[in-house]
């Protein structure tokens, strides 16, 4: 190692520190022990280094920086805590509102399904009473079945023997949700003027289209609007026989 190289290396030597453990510094220090000129330079250098270190370390941070850091951090922590609280409150409020709305929806009375037997009976009775127009006027039962079949309404219905003997005057097709209902019109009793709506009506619908249709073929008698009706199920179809007459007359045709 040359003297000028040793000087460059010893520039970064600080006496009393771990710098001495550095192999290059060790080698340069060893050279200084045998080189008087380098040794004198090193003595001055060490003094310079010491003075520089002391002077550098006199440099102080501005007054108030310590308090500024601590107080701003505390403020930022407070803000963060407030934000967390706000988030918590918002979350709890949201959950509560959603819960209330959900509960209200759950507990609210649900609208009655409109494909139940009661609604079916009311709707069909209304057709009979409001002055309907027959789609086909005939007393021929086969024509009526053919017409209903053509209109994709129930046509393979079964008529009781008394009904088979009743005066047939025509039929109509009514709507019930997405299905069709056959309406067969009869006149019972003394003859009515031609074109006069009947006084006995048989409605036939698919059982599946009426939600709570009776489970068997035993007629259930009830009063719907101004009509007396008998409702029963047979071979996958709901039958509803209605009349303006009284119940005893109705029962004769079941």
């Amino acid at each position, binding site marked *: 190692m040359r003297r000028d190289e040793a000087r460059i*290396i010893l520039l970064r030597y600080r006496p009393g520190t771990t*710098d001495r453990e550095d192999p290059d510094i060790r080698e340069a220090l060893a050279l200084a022990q045998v080189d008087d000129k380098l040794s004198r330079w090193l003595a001055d250098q060490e003094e310079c280094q010491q003075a520089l*270190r002391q002077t550098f370390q006199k440099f102080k941070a501005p007054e108030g920086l310590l308090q500024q850091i*601590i107080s701003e951090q505390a403020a930022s922590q407070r803000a963060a805590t407030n934000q967390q609280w706000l988030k918590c409150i918002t979350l709890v409020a949201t959950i509560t509102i959603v819960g209330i709305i959900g509960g209200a929806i759950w507990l609210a009375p649900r609208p009655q399904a409109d494909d139940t037997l009661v609604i079916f009976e009311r709707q069909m009775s209304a057709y009979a009473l409001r002055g309907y127009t027959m789609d086909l006027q005939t007393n021929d039962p086969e024509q009526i079945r053919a017409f209903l079949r053509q209109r994709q309404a129930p046509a393979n219905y079964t008529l009781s023997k008394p009904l088979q003997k009743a005066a047939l005057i025509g039929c109509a097709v009514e709507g019930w949700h997405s299905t069709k209902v056959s309406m067969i019109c009869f006149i019972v009793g003394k003859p009515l003027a031609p074109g006069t709506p009947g006084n006995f009506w048989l409605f036939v619908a698919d059982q599946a289209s009426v939600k709570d249709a009776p489970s068997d073929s035993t007629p259930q008698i009830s009063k719907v609007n101004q009509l007396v009706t008998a409702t029963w199920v047979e071979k996958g179809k709901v039958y509803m026989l209605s009349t303006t007459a009284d119940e005893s007359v109705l029962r004769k045709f079941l």
Partner: protein
Amino acid sequence: MAERLDFENLVACHYQPLYQFAFSLTRDEAESCDLTQQTFCIWAAKGQQLRDLSKVKTWLFTTLHREFLGSRRRQTRFPHIELEAAESELPEVSPLAVNRLDVEQLMTALRKVDELYQAPVALFYLQDYSYKEIAEILEVPIGTVKSRLARGLLRLQHLLADASNQAPTP
């Protein structure tokens, strides 16, 4: 409360050397305050992740240096300069002349040292860090620290020699 006291103690212990280091890098008081404060903010947010508490000081200095580099990245690209040992002759700086220098003159001289060398020189004088510790803080190899130190100290010696020559003798 204890957590806050810990933070206060930590700041009280380290804000001075961190500010000194920041100032040696930025040469601007306001920016140095901001860098120091930012370093403690990062500590408050991420300091718990540090498992070895004996490394707190190094962690703070490394963080401050990273923040400084982050703020400078777009502005400056450090030049890569190799040390050539005998590039310059060593100036003669007497201990007497150095003793006459005040902090302001010394910091002025440090500001004139190339930016690449300022950080190792500042850590070398301000904190008496070992080469290994300086390497950890600056996240560079120890050999790089030594070469940068030699280069920076050489430049500083030139500047101090100029300053002492210009200073009026008593």
